[in-house]
């Protein structure tokens, strides 16, 4: 009798557990898992949303292979990633290391200032920087003029536009990543550094051999999340340049958006999405392997 009581209670616990999990599981299934499967399915069709879907086999993937506009767009994504990720990484680490050494009350003001741009939405940041970048009457050109530099086109220039967008990305995300680094640095026991200094280590040596190795988990986390995010930069570009001038800022994610929602080529857009998804998946697997190796070493 006692036994059946226990199993009854256990069955009740199972039911409660399923009830607790069901809403989230169902939601993730419908709004994340089904879409990725559906994208894969649609990528074998030609579909403009209005007429019937037509099965075309691998035609969309063959088209992607030959589509120079797509590869140029992906090349711009890579360019953005290669410029933005190391810059953000080094700047946020540099400022975190610097802030961690000061003891003054100014530290709080500095941290808040670094984080302020993060409290601004991407659309506000975009409009604000469009105003600052304004070619004829903007603040940046006024500052350039005061410094004796020539007038720049900024977002209107094919050469400068992508860099201008990277500047805004840095401005928004620097403080957030700096705080992540800072809290990792603060978690290192002070005695480690003191011991090294007693042994005659210089400031650079302390950073190189104590601090940096001990924040590797955070470093990898920031590298992975920033790289994945850099493949997905879309809102800033859509507001500030719409891919222009002359496609200078048309990155992969924007090309997919344009094909799908403006050209209504749902099948082709899905094929490109699937490709982007798998490239990011391969990338995050490589990164995850790196992270688990770190843990294996038992840092």
């Amino acid at each position: 009798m006692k036994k059946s009581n226990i199993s009854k209670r256990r069955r009740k616990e199972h039911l409660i557990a399923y009830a607790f999990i069901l809403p989230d599981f169902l939601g993730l299934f419908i709004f994340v898992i089904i879409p990725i499967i559906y994208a894969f399915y649609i990528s074998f069709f030609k579909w403009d949303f209005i007429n019937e879907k037509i099965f075309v086999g691998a035609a969309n993937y063959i088209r992607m292979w030959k589509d120079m506009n797509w590869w140029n767009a992906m090349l711009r994504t890579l360019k953005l990633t290669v410029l933005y990720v190391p810059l953000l990484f080094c700047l946020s680490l540099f400022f975190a290391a610097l802030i961690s050494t000061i003891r003054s009350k100014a530290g709080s003001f500095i941290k808040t200032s670094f984080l302020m741009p993060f409290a601004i939405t991407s659309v506000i940041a975009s409009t604000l920087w469009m105003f600052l970048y304004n070619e004829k009457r903007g603040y940046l050109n006024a500052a350039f003029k005061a410094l004796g530099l020539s007038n720049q086109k900024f977002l209107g220039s094919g050469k400068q536009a992508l860099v201008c967008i990277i500047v805004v990305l840095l401005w928004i995300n620097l403080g957030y990543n700096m705080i992540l680094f800072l809290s990792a640095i603060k978690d290192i026991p002070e005695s480690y550094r003191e011991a090294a200094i007693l042994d005659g280590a210089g400031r650079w040596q302390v950073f190189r051999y104590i601090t940096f190795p001990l924040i590797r988990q955070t470093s990898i986390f920031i590298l992975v999340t920033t790289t994945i995010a850099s493949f997905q930069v879309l809102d800033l570009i859509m507001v500030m340049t719409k891919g222009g001038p002359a496609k200078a800022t048309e990155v992969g994610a924007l090309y997919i958006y344009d094909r799908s929602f403006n050209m209504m080529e749902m099948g082709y857009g899905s094929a490109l999405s699937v490709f982007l998804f798998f490239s990011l998946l391969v990338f995050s697997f490589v990164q995850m392997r790196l992270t688990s190796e770190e843990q294996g070493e038992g840092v």
Partner: protein
Amino acid sequence: MKKEPVKIILLVVFSIILLFPIYILFMSAFKEPGELFVVSLWPRKISFDNLKLVLNPKFLNSIKNSLFVSATVTAVAMILHSMCGYALARLDFPGKKLIFTTIISTLMIPTTTILVPLFMVCKSLGIENSYAGLIIPALFNAYGIFLFRQFYLDFPKELEEAAEVEGCGKVRLFVQIVLPLSRPMIVPLTIAFFLGTWNNYLWPLIINKKEEYQTIQVYLANMVSGYSTPWNEVIATAAMSAIPVFLLFLLLQKQLKEGIKVTGIK
């Protein structure tokens, strides 16, 4: 640390550079309309003419929509994710590992790659051009579930055991004892979900074409998308719409810094 003053000066100068664009935004909002593009550090005369342009019904409606959508997403997500995270951490049931792995694997799917099919799914569910379309797809986030699970794994077992002895059921235990003690995780996640939803531009742009449900980000972005941009109104609107989040930010600074540490998410 002899070099401390040098470091502080360097950092303060850089902080001011970072703050400068925000200062320009608010300062310019108080300029006279004709003076907007006159480069200066201070308005010649403080004027409310730009700000008056902002307070029209469309702007107020979009602020209302954004507040409603962000608050609803945050509240519902907290309830769902804490329940799910709790069950995964503390309850026993068959298939637990498989369910957990499935949930975690969705973390690897970046939103940008599913925008097209997600739109198609929502369209076939008939929730485009509605609050439901803005809210429901924004709720489900495996990272929130994962963080709640991690939090509940470290939860003191004694509390649950004591409650069990008292004859308290699992549901009551969760609602009356576990949830009130979950503040350290609920606060940072509330900030993260609210800011994330408030900031979102792409999804509301895709899923809703009706002015009735337009969010503030879409409203503001639409202003600069035409051939001639009404800059006075844009700057004033940007400044006004930044205020709610700035207030939240200044009030919850400490929790926000703490929250970044705890959650690592935006």
